């Protein structure tokens, strides 16, 4: 039986050698590229999350002072004071289809106002208001983490001849990406 012997010329060997080196270099750069891209993406993700948290805290204050919630009369105004009557009206408007859900940004998934002191219980509605604890303006998702600010919750109380009554509360905002 005659054996087949393949003979390579010197030039062919060099081409093969070069081809292997080039392939190896490409593979090396690809792996390095993927590694660098992953590090960059992780950094970017963290930056975005930090920005969202910062933005949520700012938004909580902004919303508290917005004309939709802020407590103000024609003669005076109050920083970080929420008009509780307006808050419940806004909740009703949103539940009846007003587009306030996306007004403060599509990233905002939930806004709620909680009475801290005096202690009361339950979600507010037209029947139990003002003897209730929480007004959830809207709630797009169940998966959230709240960031908030302390505020005064004010309303006109008809007792004792009628006066403005303010209590301690908190406005809380949840945004996509907060953990």
């Amino acid at each position: 039986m005659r054996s087949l012997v393949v003979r390579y010329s010197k030039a062919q060997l060099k081409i093969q050698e070069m081809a292997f080196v080039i392939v190896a270099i490409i593979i090396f750069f690809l792996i390095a590229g993927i590694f660098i891209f992953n590090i960059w993406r992780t950094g970017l993700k963290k930056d975005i999350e930090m920005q969202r948290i910062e933005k949520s805290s700012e938004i909580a204050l902004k919303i508290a002072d917005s004309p939709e919630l802020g407590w103000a009369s024609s003669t005076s105004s109050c920083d970080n004071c929420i008009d509780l009557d307006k808050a419940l009206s806004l909740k009703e408007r949103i539940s009846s289809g007003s587009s306030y859900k996306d007004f403060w940004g599509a990233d905002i998934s939930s806004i709620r106002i909680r009475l801290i002191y005096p202690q009361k219980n339950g979600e507010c509605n037209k029947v139990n208001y003002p003897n209730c604890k929480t007004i959830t303006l809207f709630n797009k998702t169940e998966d959230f983490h709240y960031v908030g600010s302390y505020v005064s919750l004010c309303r006109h109380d008809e007792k004792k001849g009628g006066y403005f009554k303010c209590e301690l509360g908190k406005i809380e905002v949840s945004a996509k990406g907060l953990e």
Partner: protein
Amino acid sequence: MSLNNKQGFEFSFGWIFALLFGAVIIFLAVYMAFNIVAGERRASDVGLTKSFDTLLYPVGTGLESNKVTQITFPVETRLMFQCNSNGDFGEQIIKTSASSSLGNKYSQNPINVKSKDKYIFAGSSIEGKDFLTFVQPLNLPFDVADLVYFISAKQKYCFIVSKTSSVGKELDNLKKNNYYFNKSVFIGDLNDCPADSNKVCFNSGAGSNCNISISGNQVIKGNKIVYFDGGEIGNSLLYAAVFSESDYYECQVKRLNKRASELAKLYIEKQKMSPAGCGLGLGAALETYANLTKNFNNTKNSLGDVVSLAKEIRRQNEELSCPLF
């Protein structure tokens, strides 16, 4: 490769392979480098726009009202403002592009950030490193929104108005608390205005050397006229018309009216469910106001009616023992 053969060049397979492969590698490297730079630039612009958007929150909450706030970007930046009046609230569109020494100075198509609760009045595209901003609330008849005015520190405005007038007093107060604003905004005589400034003339007729003329309730810019109301509601719309372009101003005022309409509906709801019976008797007027502002057309045809009804609602509200707002 051999040059000895006079019939032509002789390329060995090794050379052809190396040249082709080398060209492909160099092309890919250059392509990737350009893509990475473009991507980084885009990511940086998005970050910048988001930061700028967040930065405007304290400005817009009234915490910094009656005061000029200076915003300094790390590099020369182009800010673009657009307005969309569609939908229940319309949209404020903000685009930022940081200058770069690679390729075009500014990105041709920067990513935009949209917000429904901001009302920025500025030129459609302004450039610079330092920007100046101040805020005025719009009460029509209740607090509708904070109007944010934005100019580049490079821009100059000269108001030909007496320092004792309401506009003169307001601007003079703002000038006193910011060095850059003092260098950008001038109050006084037309002859004292810097040559490169936008000259804002009051009640002196259109034309001559004025870039912007204010006559009665009209603001005339070139061949375009927009309207404001400088009475009880203050000078917020006057500044808005001066610092922004006519079409943009009309769009933003339309957006403000849409918000006023939603707020009126909110106050109607509050009046209906208020346990203390606040705002009794205001319902019908608020209903009319909500419809009027929702169907706001332009400042020429609609603003006068909106303002006069707003004044009437304010008067009625102030007479109540438990006012609605």
